[in-house]
């Protein structure tokens, strides 16, 4: 079963696609959360329950959007690829590993695309939840969540660096720089 799955994964070259979606939508999710948190930070005195509800809403929306958009685009791509391959082979490949991969892999890729921002958002929201559950556990919940978001952006950058075989620390700082610029923009807009 696992070997068959690995074969389908290799045939459809889904590992590259899933990895790309994971990074792209993961980055998207972290920056969205960062934007929300910075917005709440500059607006001052916002109730924690409102922050959590807004962040959770955004996380769910990102997840659903990620799953549906990736599934629609990937299933169309895979269908087209299969059709072209069938034309080249002059055989019906629906029952072959290629046919199975074309039907099954879009689900998996969509799941990765949708779950990446959702999981990152949940991680970013953890300090907020902890504070709501046990007040005082996290002294500065909003600031801690922002710090978690920065850490995740840095780690995503490191991951990209490892993939591209470039210097991981530089790649991490580059991603962090983007997040800092985003935060600074929101902060400046907020205080004007």
């Amino acid at each position, binding site marked *: 079963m696992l070997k068959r799955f690995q*074969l389908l994964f290799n045939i459809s070259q889904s590992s590259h696609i899933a990895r790309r979606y994971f990074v792209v939508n993961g980055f998207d999710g972290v920056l969205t959360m960062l934007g929300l948190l910075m917005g709440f930070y500059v607006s001052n005195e916002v109730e924690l329950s409102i922050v959590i509800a807004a962040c959770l809403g955004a996380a769910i929306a990102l997840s659903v959007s990620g799953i549906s958009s990736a599934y629609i685009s990937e299933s169309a791509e895979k269908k087209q690829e299969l059709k072209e391959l069938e034309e080249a*082979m002059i055989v019906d490949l629906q*029952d072959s590993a290629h046919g199975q991969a074309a039907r099954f892999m879009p689900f998996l890729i969509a799941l990765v695309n949708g779950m990446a921002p959702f999981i990152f958002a949940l991680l970013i929201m953890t300090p907020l939840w902890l504070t709501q559950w046990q007040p005082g556990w996290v002294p500065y919940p909003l600031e801690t969540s922002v710090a978690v978001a920065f850490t995740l952006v840095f780690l995503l950058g490191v991951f990209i660096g490892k993939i591209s075989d470039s210097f991981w620390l530089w790649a991490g700082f580059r991603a962090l720089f983007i997040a800092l610029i985003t935060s600074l923009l929101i902060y400046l807009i907020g205080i004007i």
Partner: protein
Amino acid sequence: MVKVQRIVLDVLKPHSPNGLEFSTQLAESCPGCCFKLKVAEVDEKTETVIIIVESDDIPYDQVAEAIASMGGSIHSIDEVEVTSAKDSSQLTDA
């Protein structure tokens, strides 16, 4: 008892899975068989490979099914080696 001991197949397959993966999958689906794969021609989306199967008794249907399940299409059977063992009754008569 007739036994197929060697078959040479001309197969058209997509580039993916590659030769190594393709022959490994074939070997896994037909235990006891030895597979030799040679790429004969490469096109834009497909490649023609020559697959040599050797065994004491080749389960041809199983091999053909395994090839089809990986998107391959058998174009021709180029070479066959079949042996027929003498019946034990015939040996006794002699």
